[in-house]
């Protein structure tokens, strides 16, 4: 099990509101789930993934939560290639030749 050391840059997860504590106006499917929160900070103690630890965030707040990632990476990218865009591009160029 991966462990964080005190001072590591980590992400913690918190249950802010359980399903029964959610806002009355939330749609039914949303109300069936808890309101979750993630925030990053420096670990204030060692801990294993899933364990509750405290972090100090960039603004100096202390936040408690379940350790969910260590040095969390950015997962977004340019996605899979979308060939439909090539169809559009080729069409646009040929239309411009007619113009």
């Amino acid at each position: 099990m991966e462990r964080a050391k005190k001072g590591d840059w980590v992400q913690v997860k918190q249950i802010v509101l359980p399903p029964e504590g959610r806002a009355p106006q939330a749609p039914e499917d949303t109300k069936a789930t808890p309101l979750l929160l993630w925030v990053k900070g420096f670990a204030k103690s060692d801990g294993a993934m899933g364990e509750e630890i405290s972090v100090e965030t960039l603004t100096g707040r202390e936040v408690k939560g379940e350790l969910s990632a260590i040095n969390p990476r950015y997962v977004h990218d340019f996605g899979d290639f979308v060939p439909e865009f090539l169809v559009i591009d080729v069409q646009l160029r040929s239309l411009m030749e007619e113009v």
Partner: protein
Amino acid sequence: MTLDMSYEAVMGRKNEIMKKAIGIDYSEFESGSLSFDYERMMHEAGYSLDEIRKIQGATGVGNTPLLELRNITALARKYAPAGKGARIFVKDEASNPSGSFKARRAATAVYHAKRHGYKGVIAATSGNYGAAVASQAAMQGLKCIIVQECYDSRMIGQPEILEKQRACEAYGAEVVQLTVGPELFYTFLSLLEETGYFNASLYTPFGIAGVETLGYELAEQFRERIGSAPDAVVVTHAGGGNVTGTARGLIKADAEDTLVVGASVDLSGLHMASDHDFNRKSFTTGHTGFGIPFATWPDRADVPRNAARPLRYLDRYLLVKQGEVFYITEALAILEGLERGPAGNTSLTAAFVLAQEMDRDQTIVVQETEYTGAGKHPMPQISFAKKNGIEVLFGDPDTEVPGKNIVFPENPGAIKLREFDLDKARRSYIRNAIDKCRSEGCPSDEDMAFLAAETKSDRSFVQSVIEELKASK
């Protein structure tokens, strides 16, 4: 004493938290009935155009290039009747420091926070505004927290929002991420209470005044280049600040005759707070899920009185489809060499069809672009949509069903002009307002004049809607 942090308790402390976090006593502008003095609020709580130009200029915000889109204009003319096909220009707002027009709003908000001694700023936003506030906070030396609605309950994040998280963190902000739901506001209030930071809301008088320079600037640039103000300005409409600020700036530049046209992506049928629907949309802003509710009731925002009041300014409101915006985003890159958007190209898509009904010697300004990059680009948006079971196909854009499919137009001629009936929005605004009447004499004479101004209509229109409401009860 420990504070009660339950949803109900925090929401119950809303007014006192807000007062400390904005420093505006909104009650000064209230009449006690429906109406409030909007212009006085904008004047007294905001900044003058000259002050804002100075504030923005100090951090390199504004004075963005105005570019003529000659090839897209030529393409629009191919589908326009003889003599039609207005010239299309774009204000390249992506060249602002944080890559979008939102830098204008953030510059004034952060300046105001600093001047009033706040140590930090907080904004609740999943969009470009987060990066803008974070960038301004970095420039002006304040701490910054951005609260995002980012994930569904499986912790799957919209790529566009994940990119905004990265951008905010790149500027040194703390990003608090939440699963979907209306309680974003609850977390936001809790953080304001905990930190004592400034509420850098999108909807304060100074935030909206920050956008006025955009309308003013484009009218000035246009007069210098073309000799007159543009015939129409198309504005991507979501929360209403872009429309309101731009239109007010045009008026301040004496360009009252310029038509103000709003444009949103049609996401009808998707519930914005639904865990299931959250990742089935390919636009996280500029869509009807914000555009219509904020037009028909602006005071649903994170401030007591919203300074963004789009129905006061909109002359027309056009709807476009997701597939159409992606198509035009490709056209902007392929034909004009500008890789921007996609969400910011909502107004360009509307302009492409609007141009076809206007004369060739007329002019349209698309008043924004936004930066593009990983996550925030047609490629990751469409591949994310496909992974979420959305069908992607070519066909008639009118067959697009948000959350089910994305239909790319078979050719640019298939992109259509869809008018949203503004009178419908006006009726709905008046109904929402009348629902708030609590006293015997409501609506008062003053309220009637207020409702007419709020809906850019007149007293007889307001009266007729009130009578319709009475008749239906």
